[in-house]
């Protein structure tokens, strides 16, 4: 090997230096945290946000019957007044927001193998089941009472909370399952 060859072999190129960056890799602890964070965020994207209509109807349900009519009509009249007045232009949103695409994964969700069937009236029982199970799981049917599905759900997903999937294929995450009367809960296989 002549001197020139030796010199070129010992020469560091910019490509070689940049290749060093490829060897910068996070450790396992980082990936564990990454995976957990990503699962939590993915679950949040699966949660259906209650619409304004649903929230309004929910609120209305808490108000004594004779007052409901007045309360229901008041905002409607206010909206009507705004829409016919010149000031309505002020409230018009000119930015064309794209509607959120439906999530195919949720829409086409097919409940898979049933792994456990539980009858319980206690939230604690469910929490124990969640703790016993290594993986997150989906509850397909919750709180059936007089043919009505009752769900209480919260938007935040925290450790130990329960993932709910109602019969209309809407997914919810809850840490407060309200079970009254004779309730049946089906646990299907793991989501992740």
């Amino acid at each position, binding site marked *: 090997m002549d001197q020139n060859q030796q010199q070129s072999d*010992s020469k560091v190129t910019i490509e070689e230096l940049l290749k060093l960056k490829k060897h910068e*890799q996070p450790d396992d602890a*980082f990936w564990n*945290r990454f995976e957990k964070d990503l699962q939590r965020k993915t679950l949040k994207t699966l949660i259906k946000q209650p619409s304004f209509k649903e929230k309004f109807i929910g609120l209305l349900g808490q108000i004594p019957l004779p007052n409901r009519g007045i309360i229901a009509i008041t905002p409607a009249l206010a909206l009507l007044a705004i829409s016919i007045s010149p000031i309505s232009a002020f409230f018009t949103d000119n930015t064309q927001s794209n509607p959120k*695409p439906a999530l195919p*994964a*949720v829409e*086409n969700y097919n409940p898979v193998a049933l792994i456990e069937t539980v009858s319980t009236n206690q939230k604690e029982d469910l929490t124990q089941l969640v703790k016993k199970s290594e993986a997150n799981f989906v509850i397909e049917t919750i709180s059936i009472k007089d043919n009505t599905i009752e769900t209480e759900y919260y938007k935040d997903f925290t450790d130990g909370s329960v993932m709910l999937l109602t019969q209309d294929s809407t997914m919810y995450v809850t840490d407060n399952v309200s079970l009254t009367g004779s309730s049946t809960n089906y646990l299907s296989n793991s989501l992740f």
Partner: protein
Amino acid sequence: MSYSKAISTDIAEAAEQRSAEAKQDLMLVERVKRGEIGAFNILVKKYRDRLFAVVYNLTSNREEASDLTQDAFIKAFRSIHKFKQKSAFYTWLYKIAVNTTLNHLKKNKLRRFFSFESMAEEGYSSEVLDKITSNGNAKADKATLLNELQEKLNEALQCLSIKHRTIVVLHEIEGLSHKEIADIVGCNEGTVRSRLHYAKQQLQSKLSQYIS
């Protein structure tokens, strides 16, 4: 074989391997579209390292890179039904990650903090360090030199414009071909080549103390 030829062969082989992987990916994408969330998890596991590396090398900040990589995966999940299979899944995924990162960098131009991942002082990195020390460029021990080099590399990359940095990261670090990069960035191959040439010239002048 010259270094540039070896690099070209590496890139060609990597491209061939990716093409085979692309077929497997399409099957997984179909499963996700049918509602199998677990299939998306397989895709995440497969691409998280590569995607994180791209984002990390664009931002030079591990926490930001972690968040942005997660955001990219979530965006991909939300819009997977829009993936029309005109390109490979990974190209589509890289495109989402690159766009997410570029938008973030544009929004946060003024407040940037850098942090870097640890790098084992063995194998390839050790070889490069040996070369640098044998050329009489370094007085410090290897560990110190490696840290210094990482810092200087990050600084040099951050001095490049976002579009030049993107090309360097995708080609020199991630090993993507000019064509793949053109697809991801949305320009032609000629532009990729010229940006790469210019960026490497800039880096060479910034890192001249390590290059003999």
